[in-house]
């Protein structure tokens, strides 16, 4: 059994600390800081999991591990603002239209191999979301892809918690009586809403309930300060997160497509008194970019994925660039286990469609999503003081031919391409060994017809 464990990489072994206390020097790379320009033949010093120095000449402490990055490119760890990776037991609690009581944080699965594959693509942070089955979905969580750690250790400490909303076709699909390909279930199982106006109403009503709830609790607290002893109101897990939204302590990430529903949501938010933090997908955002910018919502969209349903029809790959030019904080996301492995290439597409600069393109998958998630003080660029979440590419990350060689999170190396290739034969041999043992046992069992 010991032998088994020694063959496995740090995947199944638990390390005590999440911060690598070692000193690391990445030397002589083209450092794409994203926020402070590009440093040719630059070096980055990492101490205690943080970026301690960035520059052309960085003094090297004697005990530092040195990574020679000559000819290679270093950029901040990539951040995905829309992910459903690493969720156990269902992405949607689609049985009710308002499932704000459920929490993705409860069901993070740290063993999802897609975490590792995403790491191999340079991804370091994911905004893990509830699905889009409900007008108001579940509470969401930001994780760092610390492959090999427990679910608890993957939670991005300090990131503001979120909640998922969804507009348009997905949340209203179950409400329709028609028996077409997309509608599910018998008439008895039809779940309100069946229309876009119903989706709006669900949101309005839930927040009306939340305001009532907030008032009841305020009344209770006031009574207790006055020295009375009232019975506290029932704690309602559905309404608690909505109150947090009203009080600005929880971010709203709203899946939407059409311009009319985008405007609807912004208006409902303004009327009710809360902010939309990000609009997700927002494929028609280019039509209402001014309004989005005026509200102060960020937009997280696809580079060039559209037409897979009616509401995704009227889209354009220029969406990100147009919204950006109108003053919206834009990021590119994946919403996909596959796409999340090459977000650097998605970013590159905004140069072709929209004429964004290299830095603006890289920002789409680094500092911009960091700002949207409120963690730009900690990640999103190669700056002194930030966490050492870094990716080393063999070529410029915006090039089709590039691939990540090493990925660090908090200064800890979580992916190394060479080590991965090295370990594969041992892994295969180990697996074959287990399979052979099992098959041998099976044959042995079959050859003995008695059951004892």
């Amino acid at each position, binding site marked *: 059994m010991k032998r088994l464990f020694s063959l496995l990489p740090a995947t199944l072994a638990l390390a005590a600390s999440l911060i690598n206390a070692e000193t690391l020097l990445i030397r002589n790379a083209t450092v794409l800081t994203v926020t402070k320009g590009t440093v040719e033949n630059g070096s980055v010093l990492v101490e205690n999991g943080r970026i301690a120095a960035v520059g052309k000449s960085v003094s090297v402490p004697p005990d530092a591990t040195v990574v020679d990055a000559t000819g290679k490119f270093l950029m901040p760890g990539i951040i995905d603002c829309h992910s459903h990776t690493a969720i156990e037991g*269902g992405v949607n609690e689609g049985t009710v239209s308002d499932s704000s009581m459920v929490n993705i944080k*409860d069901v*993070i699965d740290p063993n999802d191999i897609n975490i590792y594959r995403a790491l191999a693509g340079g991804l370091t942070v994911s905004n893990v979301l509830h699905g889009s089955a409900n007008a108001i979905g579940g509470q969401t969580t930001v994780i760092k892809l610390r492959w090999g750690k427990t679910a608890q250790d993957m939670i991005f400490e300090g990131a503001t918690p979120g909640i998922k909303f969804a507009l348009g076709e997905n949340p209203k699909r179950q409400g329709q009586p028609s028996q077409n390909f997309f509608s599910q*279930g018998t008439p008895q199982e039809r779940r309100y809403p069946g229309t876009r106006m119903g989706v709006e109403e669900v949101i309005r009503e839930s927040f009306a309930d939340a305001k009532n709830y907030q008032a009841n609790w305020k009344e209770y607290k006031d009574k207790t300060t006055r020295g009375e002893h009232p019975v506290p109101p029932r704690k309602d*897990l559905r309404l608690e997160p909505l109150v947090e939204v009203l009080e600005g302590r929880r971010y709203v990430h709203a899946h939407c497509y059409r311009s009319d529903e985008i405007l609807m949501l912004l208006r409902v938010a303004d009327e009710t008194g809360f902010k939309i933090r990000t609009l997700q997908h927002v494929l028609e955002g280019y039509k209402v970019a001014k309004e989005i910018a005026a509200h102060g919502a960020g937009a997280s969209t696809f580079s060039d994925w559209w037409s897979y349903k009616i509401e995704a029809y009227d889209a354009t790959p220029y969406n990100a660039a147009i919204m950006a030019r109108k003053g919206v904080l834009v990021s590119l996301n994946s919403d996909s286990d596959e796409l999340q492995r090459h977000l650097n290439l998605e970013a590159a597409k905004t140069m072709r469609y929209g004429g964004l600069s290299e830095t603006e393109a890289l920002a789409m998958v680094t500092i911009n999503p960091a700002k949207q998630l409120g963690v730009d003080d900690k990640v999103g660029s190669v700056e002194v003081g930030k966490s050492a979440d870094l990716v080393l590419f063999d070529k410029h990350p915006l090039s089709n031919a590039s691939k990540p060689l090493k990925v660090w999170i908090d200064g800890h190396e979580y992916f190394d391409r060479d080590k991965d290739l090295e370990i594969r034969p041992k892994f295969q041999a180990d697996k074959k060994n287990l399979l052979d043992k099992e098959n041998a046992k099976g044959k042995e069992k079959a050859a003995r017809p008695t059951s*004892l």
Partner: protein
Amino acid sequence: MHCKLILAAVASFALSPLLSEVPSAIAIKDAHVVIGSGAELPKGTVLLRNGLIQEVGPNVSIPADAWVIDGAGLTIYPGFIDALGTWGIPGASAPPGGAARTAGAGPQAPLPQTTSTPAPRIRGPEDRPQTYTNERAADLVSPTDNRLDAARSAGFTTSATFPNKGIFEGLGAMIDLAGERSGNMVVAQPIGQQVAFRVGGGGMGRAFPSSLMGNISYVRQLYLDLDQYKKAKEAYDSHTGGTPRPEYDRYLEGLAESPRLLLPADQSQQIDRMLSFGAELKVPFVLYGLHEAYRRVNQIKTANVPALVSLKWPEKPKDADPADTPNYRDLVMREQAPAVPGLLAKAGVKFAFYSDGVESAPDLKKAIKKAIDAGLPRAEAIRALTLTVAEIYGVADRLGSIEKGKIANLTITKGEAFDEKSTIEYVFIDGKQFRPSKEMQTGLPAGSRTRPTLSDTAEIKESNR
């Protein structure tokens, strides 16, 4: 005088059938006694009276009215206890799938709504979906359950029996696996509340909850409701005049009665999750499943949480597509799971075995033997089937070891328990003697030859090529 003789004769005739059915005392003489709490008597006698252990020791004086069983060549163990199951509840299907089977679309879908009248839609936690907190195993058990014979022939005298429907499945009871009437079977209740996560089978418009996070949030909400219910009741009781009363909630009453919560955790991340969830709920809790616990031994030890290990060891599915390559993690689990009990024992974790749907005597024996072969000392295996279970459920004062005053539940073997050649000779439940059939223990109908199945023949042909 003639009349006296006749009367005496008639009297003795009348009494003898009674005497032959119910011995007032039984002594098993000069057997190897495994007491259960650590000590062993290479040659000892156990005296039972009125369903209790009256005396146990190397030199017990046997009273005149006791029936004597010659214990030479026999080993006496405390009666085995199934740490979690449905034995005793007639018609109960196999216990709820372990936690591993609930991740993803589980086969255990929520209760099917196939009745002609459409069931009211569950709109959320307030509708108390799949909640049977107030159902009691003690109310459901009956000596007519047709699985009791098989359980006894595997050496089991007792079971921690829980109902098995829904998310909150109900209040379990410690049940002796024999009795004249249902009430006789109950040793102690309630001993806990079992939770199972019902994932899948739902989806849009169907009954809440369908996802794992939905299940977890519902359990969390019910405990919050219980907290508020208790406060409301306390406030009302101290000031009934002039205040409206809180609404009676049978489910919360049932939850309040639960002395401990049983939470499912098979895979390593589920163990992590349930350890922190149990701590969050601030209730005494126990984990069940634990097939991937070889990755979490230290954490379970540190948390000081009792562990129930499922005897349904993960195996290659029988109808597996031969072209399919199984997942590496599954392969490791199939190899390592039986080693879990040995690891837990070495770390000093309080753990016990539960049947988890394994019901035939040979299967149970094989399953326990697998753990012993994988490194669990036999004495620890016995403890995990006896005293530890009693300790976990708070009934160690009356069950789980062969000590004076405890309930007369014994498992008597020829040969050491779980050895391939050993057999269960007697089982005593509440002092009543049972002789488990040899056929039930070997799984073959009496006198039959072995007949290989079709698939066996195919495999044999393969290996002979």
